[in-house]
């Protein structure tokens, strides 16, 4: 059945190989002895928003964390298969996670600024990767904050602790922090689940802006959100990628019964 899907859900692949930012091949993942992901095959296109949906515990968060290998923070994790980024498999022995994460930024579920000033939060990435020049950093900080549509709100508070900002502002500072190293991809793990509706819509607008320059993968438990902002959507259930298609197609004419049940609210 998976074979069938692979053919039916990958129309983008027919264009050119280079139009994909990630190509996930036969990915399996275990936490200790428990398998959490089964044979995932998925091509993630460049400069588009790819949404991952599914009920809690379906493996969607685990999956997004395989894309920057954050999943390895859990010591007992084992993987097989490959994730090709550019022409390289990021799970190859010699691939440096630090380099990968510089190119593949991440925004987390709960806003997690460092207990430092707004400026230091955004300058963190460039600094750890070796940029020390103050003028350069100033430019990067301003550009990143503008890019995350929060410059006007924080430009007079750059030296204040980021903890003093509202939750929505914190999350956009975190996005600016991810933008500061000019990544190729931004991974977002339920970025609005801890935010109020107004902050949520601001972040959603921002995502629409960002996809002009970045490829975005977003995990969401909110189907409306996926429908609103994404170009392609993948539906995960029990660690399997059940269906992966253009967003409109997946929501309007799902091919799998389980997808239909989920998006019509029959479970989850």
């Amino acid at each position, binding site marked *: 059945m998976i074979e069938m899907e692979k053919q039916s859900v990958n129309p983008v692949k027919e264009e050119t190989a280079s139009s994909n930012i990630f190509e996930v091949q036969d990915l399996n993942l275990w936490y200790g002895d428990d398998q959490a992901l089964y044979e995932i095959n998925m091509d993630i296109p460049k400069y588009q928003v790819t949404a991952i949906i599914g009920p809690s515990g379906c493996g969607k968060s685990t999956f997004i964390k395989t894309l920057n290998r954050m999943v390895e923070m859990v010591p007992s994790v084992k993987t097989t298969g490959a994730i090709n980024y550019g022409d390289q498999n990021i799970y190859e022995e010699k691939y440096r996670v630090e380099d990968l994460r510089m190119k593949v930024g991440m925004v987390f579920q709960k806003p997690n600024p460092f207990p430092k*000033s707004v400026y230091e939060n955004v300058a963190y990435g460039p600094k750890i990767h070796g940029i020390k020049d103050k003028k350069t950093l*100033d430019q990067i900080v301003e550009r990143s904050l*503008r890019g995350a549509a929060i410059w006007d709100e924080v430009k007079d508070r750059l030296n204040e602790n980021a903890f003093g900002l509202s939750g929505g502002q914190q999350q956009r500072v975190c996005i600016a922090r991810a933008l500061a190293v000019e990544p190729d991809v931004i991974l977002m793990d339920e970025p609005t689940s801890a935010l109020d509706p107004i902050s949520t819509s601001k972040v959603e607008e921002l995502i629409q802006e960002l996809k002009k320059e970045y490829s975005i993968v977003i995990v969401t438990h909110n189907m409306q959100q996926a429908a609103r902002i994404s170009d392609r959507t993948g539906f995960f259930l029990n660690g399997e990628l059940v269906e992966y298609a253009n967003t409109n197609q997946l929501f309007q004419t799902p091919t799998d019964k389980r997808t239909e049940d989920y998006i019509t609210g029959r479970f989850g």
Partner: protein
Amino acid sequence: MKGVYVMSRISATSSQTVNVRSLLDEKRSKKLKVRKLENIIPYLLLLCALVSILTTAGILFTLLRETVGFFSEVSIIEFYTGTNWSPWSGDFGVLPLISGTLLITVIATVVAVPLGLMSAIFLSEYASESVRKTIKPILEILAGIPTVVYGFFALTFVTPILQSIIPELSIFNALSGGVVVGIMIVPMVASLSEDAMNAVPNSLREGAYALGGTRLEVAIKVVVPAALSGIIAAVVLAISRAIGETMIVTIAAGATPSLTMNPTDSVQTMTAFIVQAATGDTTFGSIIYYSLYAVGITLFVLTMIMNLLSQYISRKFREEY
């Protein structure tokens, strides 16, 4: 604190905007060298962590080495069965020192366990949150007072008061020292027991209250039994502290090694002997010098047994919830 950042004024249209990508790529090779250095950091840290193991090894090494030296001159049987301790005239029977330590510890326990437990029950089961939050830190001040201060207090205040009640009490006596050691360990018993009682799930209490139990009945029949291993661990740990306590007994209990269980007598504990011998003119390598370590290892083993026992009991306790 950190200097205030003044953003250099750059307009969004500035022609000389930086290309972060290429900058980062430039830095990459330098970064890789730094990363290599970072690989040795865990080993440097491990080296520091090993200092604590070296300390333990050092303690065992010192105690054992000098004790072996001691037992080559004094027979181990004589040491552990002899009832006369007068090292300056060559009698090395450690039992009087052990009995002195034991007597002090018993008195301290008799004082500390009821006081500590009752305080713990009051704080955990009766006191309001705000009362508990005020009283607990004050109790803990007791634990932070230097023992030399307790010793001073025992000798100059507690002893005279006890003498007015028990006229035959000598100036240096086990009772006064023991009582004050007991007070010193009250916070330990109270605080750790209270933690154990607090860890008892409220559902257990609610079940008992639902059956119409009074606070007292719930505390005694439900909470204390459920927290018992935690309480025992606390008491054992406190006893270990009492055994190792030095200054209070050195100052208040005297320097008369005697095989007695009479609290009004002057006694000498193991710790007090070590202080006495170290303050006097004890030359390196003399038999008195070695005897310090034979007494020291006896003290060390006793407290270590107590500590391990306490850890064992509280580990078992943790598994219960």
